């Protein structure tokens, strides 16, 4: 077992909602900071807990993911871990050299050249002049901007600045690495390069990783904390479960009409033969049949339209579409209603939450009549987490 590098015990931090009050508390804190600060901290008027009672331990070689919606306290936690601000209760113990990828390219001066700024940034990250002299060629190559290295940084694109910043930071050999949402900028090639770099240092490092990109989190983290309003609402090694919980917080049952010409309205949609419900979301087991019952009201329509029903995953990527209807299968049973059931057997979508969009258009010329997003959502249950949207039923046999 590797040694514990980060140990966080019952950490809490409070913030103030009002600027003037906050400044005045700052003066008071300055005074109490000088007297050792032993009093119990309680919430003063206009304050709230930005972080409440967080505890965890992280060993070398482990990566902790911090997820949660905006304002959940993730970045505040990182700032405390990095020693930028002091906690109001609890204790953080960190062993070894700490590196932080919170802001890339700190200390850059826009007027100076890229080469000069490597020294500025490197100095702030704690390198010595000798170390930078040794590594400068490596840094320039990693950033892939040799051609522009003597140009003022103000003429760099934002991607180039981030490249240069990361290239310098990548030279750190930290025991503890703190990563905030910095890698989002930069093109795909560079992001992949960054992750490759992180992969190589991971075995020697304890990483705390904040991201809104769940694929990235599930790729590198083996522990996870889901935060909400400063509190940890899920914590453990079951990364998939935490990600599911994170996504369910964003599910809204609000459907929205993107376009309509008024000729047809959706009255009702229902999932049939469901397995159960959680928070009003119908659940299916992997391999069940997906059966949707639609009820439309016709205002002015002479022919049966075409229905394009598609399935989106929680990151709003389209993953599947139902075969379109053929005219004969649906009939105008009543003068102003269309009702039908569409079924797909042996659903092989992987575990997760999905939503359904529909487009209704004229059969003849595809002219759209109605377009609605999120008319229903459902959850697929399975014991294993899979990132690809489909888990294909398979059989193996030796030949």
């Amino acid at each position, binding site marked *: 077992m590797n040694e514990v590098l980060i140990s966080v015990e019952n950490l809490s931090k409070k913030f103030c909602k009002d600027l003037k009050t906050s400044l005045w508390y700052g003066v008071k804190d300055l005074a109490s*900071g000088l007297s050792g600060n032993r009093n119990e901290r309680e919430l003063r008027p206009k304050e709230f807990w930005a972080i409440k009672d967080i505890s965890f331990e992280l060993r070398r070689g482990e990566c902790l993911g911090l997820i949660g919606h905006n304002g959940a306290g993730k970045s505040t936690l990182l700032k405390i871990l990095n020693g930028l601000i002091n906690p109001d209760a609890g204790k953080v113990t960190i062993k070894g050299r700490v590196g932080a990828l919170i802001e890339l390219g700190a200390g850059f001066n826009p007027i100076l050249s890229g080469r000069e700024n490597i020294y500025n940034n490197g100095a702030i990250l704690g390198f010595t002049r000798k170390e930078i002299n040794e590594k400068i060629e490596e840094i320039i190559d990693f950033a892939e901007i040799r051609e522009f290295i003597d140009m003022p940084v103000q003429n760099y694109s934002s991607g180039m600045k981030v490249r240069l910043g990361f290239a310098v930071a990548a030279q750190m050999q930290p025991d503890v690495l703190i990563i905030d949402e910095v890698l989002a900028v930069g093109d795909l090639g560079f992001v992949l390069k960054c992750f490759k770099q992180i992969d190589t240092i991971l075995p020697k490092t304890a990483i705390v990783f904040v991201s809104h990109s769940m694929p990235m989190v599930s790729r590198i983290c083996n522990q996870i904390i889901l935060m909400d309003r400063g509190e940890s609402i899920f914590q453990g090694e079951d990364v998939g479960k935490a990600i599911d919980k994170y996504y369910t917080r964003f599910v809204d049952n609000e459907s929205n009409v993107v376009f309509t010409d008024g000729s047809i309205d959706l009255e009702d949609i229902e999932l049939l033969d469901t397995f159960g419900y959680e928070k009003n979301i119908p659940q299916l087991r992997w391999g069940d049949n997906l059966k949707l019952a639609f009820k439309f009201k016709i205002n002015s329509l002479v022919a049966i339209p075409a229905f394009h029903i598609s399935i989106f995953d929680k990151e709003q990527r389209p993953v599947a579409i139902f075969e379109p209807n053929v005219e004969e299968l649906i009939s105008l049973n009543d003068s102003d209603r269309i009702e039908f059931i569409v079924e797909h057997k042996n659903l092989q979508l992987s575990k997760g939450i999905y939503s359904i969009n529909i487009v209704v258009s004229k059969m003849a010329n595809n002219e759209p009549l109605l377009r609605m997003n999120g008319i229903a959502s459902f959850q697929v249950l399975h014991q294993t987490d899979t990132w690809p949207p489909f888990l294909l039923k398979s059989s193996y046999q030796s030949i």
Partner: protein
Amino acid sequence: MELETKVYQKEGNLRIGKLLKESLADIARSRFLSFQLAKRDIQAQYRQSYLGIIWAFITPLATAFVWIFLNNSGTVRITDTGIPYPVYAFSGTLLWSIITESINSPMASTNSAKSILSKINFPKEALVVSGIYKLLFNSSIKVVLLLIFVFFYGVGFHWSLLLFPISILGGVLFGTTLGLFITPLGLLYKDIGRMISFGLQFLMYVTPVVYAIPKSGIMKTIMELNPFTPIILTARDLAVGFPPTYLTYFLIVIACCIPLFFIALLFYRISIPILVERMSA
């Protein structure tokens, strides 16, 4: 290899000896950083300007010319200073500008590093030290100009001139110490910075910057008590080769400043996390 362990918690560590040791260790560790920050700022300052260095002494030069003009034209009558008045006035305004710049330096350095302070953990003392480097750089240019004045007006060389840089160091130390104490509050409230620059304007008139201490009266008492007085007078006396009359007071001020400087440094160190929390990124 034993790993360095850091503990962050609410309770502050108030053992002054240990804090001071950490603080000094950080200063030593961040030598390159402080030098690099100073170099960056100086480079950037001059790269984006044609007049460059001139801006460092244009203010004291202008103030001096105003007073030289007032004196020569007879608008104000200034008691004899013992040396050519232009030398007196210019050395005064120049020393004054060094001191006020030192007072503002810690706050300015910290303010301009706000965005890094809230994101990266680095030895904060480096900001103070880089501020001192910049002061020394600017001051040395001003001193060269003063030397030109001294020789041009025929005051000539005196051996005490060699001690002059030490008195400048004293002035920088005095100003930086004051500035360090003000910085934490100044970063919270913008009023502080404005109050300081406002107050300094008036303070200049109770300091022998452009005229000597009067022989008697209330002004004499105020000026003699003013701790800025011995700094300016001693430095000027050394430059022009007079026996420094306020040397004792000067030494007392400097002797007080040395321990105060370290106390201010600790105060600064303790304050930064509290300030980062309240400052916008």
